[in-house]
């Protein structure tokens, strides 16, 4: 075998890292992932998680009803703290969504194939997180039935929204983010829904999946256009996701309140968003591996390890942001900024600040230790700590600054009420509820991308076997036409050139 010309055998980008454990073929991948949806009875733990979500969805509905009946006065918002949990939770939730877009778009553009098994449910989490986030500003208007006033439309009042306000920018950023995420998610789902259409046996399921997959038949020309569209959507989602949290940070950075008016905010908010988002992916991903143990072959320990590394890296950026905030405050020479730094360190809410530094700055340093990055219970607890820490960060930024602004006569205190808690826990319930509905009705791991990953592993194994003079044992047709496989993919040419001499020498 070694004497045959084998340059055609090369999968041009060697997959040295394996992101599928165990023995799998196209059939088993389809079987295992679609079984989660198609098995008639989900595991008991699914019902427990779903029931938990459902309970808190009802709390959520009560909190919204009471809010609408009585007005925003049921919250702890007061003067000077006109913005409190509504904006804290808005920023927290929208940040959580960012990991999904990072995984689905930015890692796709970087050709990180390890994303293939986690992108679908991370994207779903993006959409649900944006739904939860959007609730807060929409409800905080006090009259949610008038929320269409936020959008520019010709009206009999002769009025327009204030386009010079970051809050109006938020309307555009968040609604665009939601729309584009939904389109991207649906685009990715179509071929997988077609798999479910063909695998399901119940007539109703066949009908519903048949409508939802738009008649997808896997034609090669369709795939080619589909991949063009996927890459373009990824390409526009990447700058979009960076802009969303940048604009959210403008809500603060454009204001003059001490502690808000800094240029570090946009990058530090974006990093914090990815940090919180990856933590949330772990918070939900780890229990799912336990709930559906057969998926462990796809969401491997290596995935956990790498997600933990990204959490650590973004955590360090966030920590750097905290240090710079202190520096900016002291270096400004501004009485109010310095007073704010002192207030954070020694004021009435100092324990929140110290807890923040612990959760986001100190605790994640444990992730430097490789064995802890693969230790599932530890990682899960760490993901919760990060989630709490990112929430505290927003608390530190918002009420701590607002309770101590320029005039001591303006100073006040802030306490959340029962209804603040009810709405917050309610949105967590809504998120859980939607998430568990999603894993029951749609494939939570991208089927066709997993097949693609398997194909590239096979090709790589085949090429390696041929190169080393072993029998590839794969029917012998793995290499036919291999040269055309990556035709027109400029990113691969360099790799091809790099690996070909090696092959010729074999």
């Amino acid at each position, binding site marked *: 075998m070694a004497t045959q010309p084998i340059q055609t055998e090369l999968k041009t980008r060697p997959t040295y890292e394996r992101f599928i454990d165990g023995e799998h073929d196209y059939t088993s991948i389809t079987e295992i992932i679609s079984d989660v949806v198609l098995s008639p009875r989900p595991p008991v733990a699914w019902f427990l998680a779903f029931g938990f979500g459902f309970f808190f969805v009802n709390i959520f509905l009560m909190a919204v009803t009471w809010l609408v009946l009585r007005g925003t006065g049921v919250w702890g918002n007061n003067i000077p703290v006109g913005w409190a949990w509504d904006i804290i939770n808005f920023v927290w939730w929208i940040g959580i969504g960012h990991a999904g877009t990072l995984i689905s778009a930015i890692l796709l553009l970087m050709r990180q194939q390890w994303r293939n098994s986690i992108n679908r449910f991370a994207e779903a989490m993006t959409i649900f997180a944006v739904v939860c986030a959007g609730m807060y500003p929409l409800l905080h208007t006090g009259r949610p039935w008038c929320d269409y006033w936020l959008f520019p439309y010709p009206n009999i009042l002769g009025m327009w929204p204030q386009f010079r306000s970051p809050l109006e920018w938020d309307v555009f950023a968040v609604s665009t983010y939601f729309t584009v995420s939904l389109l991207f998610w649906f685009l990715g789902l179509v071929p997988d829904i077609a798999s479910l259409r063909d695998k399901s046996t119940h007539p109703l399921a066949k009908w519903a999946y048949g409508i939802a997959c*738009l*008649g997808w*038949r896997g034609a*090669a020309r369709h795939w080619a256009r589909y991949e*063009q569209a996927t890459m373009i959507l990824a390409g526009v989602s990447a*700058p*979009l996701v960076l802009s969303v949290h940048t604009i959210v940070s403008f809500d603060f950075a454009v204001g003059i309140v001490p502690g808000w008016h800094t240029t570090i905010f946009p990058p530090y908010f974006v990093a914090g968003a990815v940090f919180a988002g990856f933590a949330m992916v772990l918070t939900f991903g780890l229990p799912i591996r336990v709930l559906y143990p057969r998926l462990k072959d796809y969401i491997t320990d290596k995935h956990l390890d790498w997600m933990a590394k990204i959490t650590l890296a973004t955590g360090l950026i966030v920590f750097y942001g905290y240090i710079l905030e202190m520096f900016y405050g002291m270096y400004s020479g501004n009485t109010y900024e310095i007073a704010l730094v002192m207030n954070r360190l020694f004021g009435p809410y100092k324990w929140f600040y110290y807890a923040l530094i612990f959760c986001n700055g100190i605790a994640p340093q444990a992730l430097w230790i490789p064995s802890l990055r693969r230790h599932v219970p530890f990682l899960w607890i760490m993901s919760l700590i990060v989630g709490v820490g990112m929430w505290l960060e927003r608390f530190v930024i918002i009420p701590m600054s607002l309770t101590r602004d320029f005039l001591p006569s303006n100073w006040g205190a802030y306490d959340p009420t029962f209804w603040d808690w009810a709405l917050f826990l309610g949105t967590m319930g809504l998120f859980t509820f939607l998430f568990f509905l999603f894993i029951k009705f749609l494939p939570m791991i991208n089927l066709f991308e997993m097949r693609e990953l398997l194909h590239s592993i096979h090709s790589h194994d085949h090429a390696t076997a041929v190169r080393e003079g072993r029998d590839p044992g794969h029917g012998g047709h793995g290499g036919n036409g291999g040269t055309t496989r990556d035709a027109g993919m400029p990113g691969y040419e360099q790799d091809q050139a790099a690996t070909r001499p090696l092959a010729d020498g074999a």
Partner: protein
Amino acid sequence: MAVAPAMHGTIAEFDDPDALLAATIHARDAGYTHMEAYSPLPIHGLADALGFNDYRIPRFAFAGGLVGGLTGMFGLWYVSVIDYPLNVGGKPLFSWPQFIPVAYEATILFAAGMTFLACWALNGLPKVYHPVFNARNFDRASQDRFFLCIEVTDPIYDERGTAEFLAHQEGVLNVSEVEK
């Protein structure tokens, strides 16, 4: 005697993406032009082997982005200068740097929307019925099998000859006819 059903083409089934790709290249080299390959995963080079050369989606995306960006900027100019001029501290009415975020988001929204619509429109989807769904075993085309269908409209299509050609491809599992 019943009328024989109209034919869509002849289809070959494979269980390996590379076998499908090889067979498609052979069919192209044999002079077939009206054919389509079906697979449960995108296979690079397969569409090229079928003579696919359609790069309109990026143009639609660009056009969408352009229209979105211009709509955003001109829309805000119209609102701020023509329809509702508001003097804020003597600042210019057309304070364009503050209009960038909205124009930026509109660019992305329109580009993404056009990409999404163009992808489906150019693919001719949604389309719930297609004759290829009649093919034997075709429900596995979305799972673990790979198909190459040569259609009757092909100038050199010949019921027996085409079936024989497909049957001689490496890795083929079976060859069958597809009714319309």
